[in-house]
C-alpha cells in the first residue's frame, strides 16, 4: 500500500514449546520501521521466548517471522547482522575493560579492525561510559553494565533492537537514563522492540504496543490505536489479559464476567463509542490471539 511504513518485524502464527510447556501459541504481529514497540505481558506470557525467536536464538515450531527482511528460521547468519539483542539476564567478562568488551563483540561481527576503535569510542559516548573505557567490566555498577550491554547490542549498527527487560533491577535514576537512551535510539531511526512489565515506563517511551498473554498477542497497535483519550495502558493490559484468561477457561466462550455482564473494563479504557462496539465484538467472538484494533 502506498504510503504505508515498511515493516521491520513481522510474525505470523508463531508457535514454540519447551517440552509440555507452550511458550508461544500463534503469536502474530507487525512492527513498522522506526517504531519503539513495547512488548507487554505478565510473567510467563512468552515475551523472552518471542524475543529469542526474533533474535534467531530459538527456532519456532510453527509459523514464521521476518526481522528486517531476514527469515528467523532460515537466514540466521544474515539475521544476526541485522539485529541487536539484549537479554534480561546476561553475563559479562569481568576481567575485560569496557572498551575491550565492545571491541571483542565488534570483532565477532567482523567489523574491520581499523574501524573498531572509532566505533567503540562512539558507542561509549552514546551510553555515557567514556570515563569508564579502561575500567574492568567487573568494576562497573549494574546500571553501567546495562548501558554497556546496550552499547554491545549496537556495536554492529543493527536495524532492529530487541531489548528484554533492559531496565530491570535498576534504580530509578539508572532506569530513567537507560530509557532516555532507548528514546534516543528511536529518534535515530532504529526499530526497537522493548519487553517490559513496567507499563508506566513503556507508556513514556514507546510509540506502539503489543500485549502478549499466554503466548498470544492479545492486541497490538500504535498508542493512538490502542488507547483512547483518558485511557491508560495498564488498564487495557489488565482487562485484556483477564478477558483472555476467562476465555481460555470457558474454551472459547464469550468474554463475560461470571455475573454475565460484558467486560466493561475494556470499554472504559478504550473510551469511544465506535471502539466500544468493536472491542465487545472481538472479545465475544472467541478469537483471542490475533485481535488488532484500529481506529476507523
Amino acid at each position, binding site marked *: 500500500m502506498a504510503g504505508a511504513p515498511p515493516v521491520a518485524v513481522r510474525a505470523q502464527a508463531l508457535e514454540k514449546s519447551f517440552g509440555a510447556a507452550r511458550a508461544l501459541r500463534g503469536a502474530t504481529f507487525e512492527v513498522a520501521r522506526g517504531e519503539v514497540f513495547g512488548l507487554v505481558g505478565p510473567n510467563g506470557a512468552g515475551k523472552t521466548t518471542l524475543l529469542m525467536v526474533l533474535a534467531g536464538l530459538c527456532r519456532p515450531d510453527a509459523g514464521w517471522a521476518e526481522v528486517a527482511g531476514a527469515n528467523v528460521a532460515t537466514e540466521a547468519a544474515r539475521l544476526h547482522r541485522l539485529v541487536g539483542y539484549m537479554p534480561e539476564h546476561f553475563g559479562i567478562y569481568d576481567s575485560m575493560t569496557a572498551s575491550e568488551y565492545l571491541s571483542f563483540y565488534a*570483532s565477532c561481527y567482523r567489523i574491520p579492525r581499523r574501524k573498531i576503535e572509532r566505533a567503540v569510542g562512539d558507542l561509549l559516548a552514546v551510553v555515557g561510559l567514556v570515563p569508564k573505557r579502561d575500567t574492568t567490566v567487573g568494576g562497573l555498577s549494574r546500571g553501567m553494565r546495562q548501558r554497556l550491554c546496550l552499547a554491545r547490542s549496537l556495536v554492529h549498527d543493527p536495524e532492529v533492537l530487541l531489548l528484554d527487560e533492559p531496565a530491570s533491577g535498576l534504580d530509578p535514576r539508572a532506569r530513567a537514563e537507560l530509557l532516555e537512551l532507548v528514546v534516543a535510539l528511536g529518534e535515530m531511526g532504529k526499530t526497537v522492540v522493548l519487553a517490559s512489565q513496567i507499563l508506566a515506563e513503556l507508556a513514556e517511551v514507546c510509540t506502539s504496543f503489543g500485549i502478549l498473554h499466554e503466548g498470544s498477542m492479545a492486541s497490538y497497535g500504535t498508542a493512538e490505536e490502542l488507547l483512547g483519550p483518558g485511557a491508560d495502558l495498564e488498564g487495557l493490559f489488565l482487562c485484556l489479559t483477564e478477558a483472555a484468561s476467562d476465555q481460555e477457561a470457558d474454551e472459547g466462550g464469550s468474554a463475560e464476567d461470571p455475573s454475565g455482564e460484558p467486560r466493561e473494563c475494556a470499554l472504559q479504557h478504550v473510551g469511544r463509542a465506535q471502539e466500544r462496539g468493536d472491542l465487545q465484538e472481538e472479545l465475544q467472538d472467541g478469537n483471542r490471539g490475533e485481535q488488532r484494533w484500529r481506529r476507523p
Partner: protein
Amino acid sequence: MAAPVAAPEGIRRSGTVSRAFSAITANPVALKELRLRMRGWHSAVLLTGYLCVVGAVGYLGYAGIAASSSDVVQVGGAGSSLFTGLAAAVMATVALVVPGLVAPSVSGEREHGTLELLLATPVRPRGIVLAKLVAALAMVALLVLGCAPLFCIAYMLGGVGVREVLEFAAFLAVGSSCLGAMGMLASVSLRRVAPATVVSYLAMLVLLAGPFVATFAWQDASSPESPVVTATGVQGALEAVSPVMGAQALMASNSACGVGGLVTPLVGSLAPGTFNTCDGPVQYTTDMGPLGTWQTWEATLAFDGVLAIASLGASLLVFTKRAFP
C-alpha cells in the same frame, strides 16, 4: 597469454600454514579466551606449579646423574634417561591439566550467561567450539614450551636426537588433543561447570587407567628378554588403546631404561652411587591384524587421533543442535 605458474611446494605449504594460523588468530573467541585465561591468577598459579613439579623432576634427575657418575658414556645414556623422565613428568601433568582447562570452556559461558550473547553474533557454533579447544591446547603448548630449558639440558647431555623429540611432541600433541576433545564433549553436553569437569576427569581416568589395568590380566609376567616384544590378541588391543602403555613403549624405544629413566636418576640423586645404566632400548610392537605390526606407541597415537576426531565431531554435533533449541 602466459600460463599460471604454480607456486613452489615450500611456498604453498607456508601459505597453508599461514592461512591456518590466520584462521586461529582471526577468530575473536580464541583470542578472547587466550587473553582472559592469562589474566586470571589461575594461569600464574598453574604455570608456576607445573614448572615447579617438572623442574623438581629435572633437578633431582640431573643431580643424581652428576653425583653418581663421571663416566662420559654413562652420562650420555643418562641424558636419554633424563629426557625420558622429563617427558613422563610432562605427559602426566598435562593429562591432569587438560580436562580442567577444557571442561569449563563452553559450560562456563553457558553458566555465566555469556553464551547467548556469543550465539547472537555471526560467529558460528562450530567456530566457538574450535576456538575454545584451540585456546585450551595453546595453554598446554605454553606449559610444554615452558619446560624447554629442562629438555635442553637432557639434549646437551647427549643420547637424545631430533627424532625422539619429534616423537614425544607428536605423542603429546595427539594425546592432549584427545583429552581436550573428550573434555569438550562434556563441556557442550552439560550445562554446569562442576559436572562437566567431573565427567571430563572421569573420562580421562577411564582412558588412562582402564586399558592399563586391564592389560595386566593378559600380560606375560616375565621381563622381556628380546629387544622386540610383540603383543597380540586382547593384550595387543589393550596396549593399542592405552595411552599409558603407548607412552611407556615410546620411552622404552628411545631410552636405555624405559620408564626406569624417570626412576633411576631420582634414585641416584637420593642415594648417590646407585645409578646404573640399563640394558638397552626395547621395541614394543602390537599386532594390528590386517594392518600389520605397528610400534605400540604408534598404534596408541592412531587410536588417540581417531578418538579425538570422534569426540570433536560429537562435540560439534551436540553443540550445534543445542545452540538454537
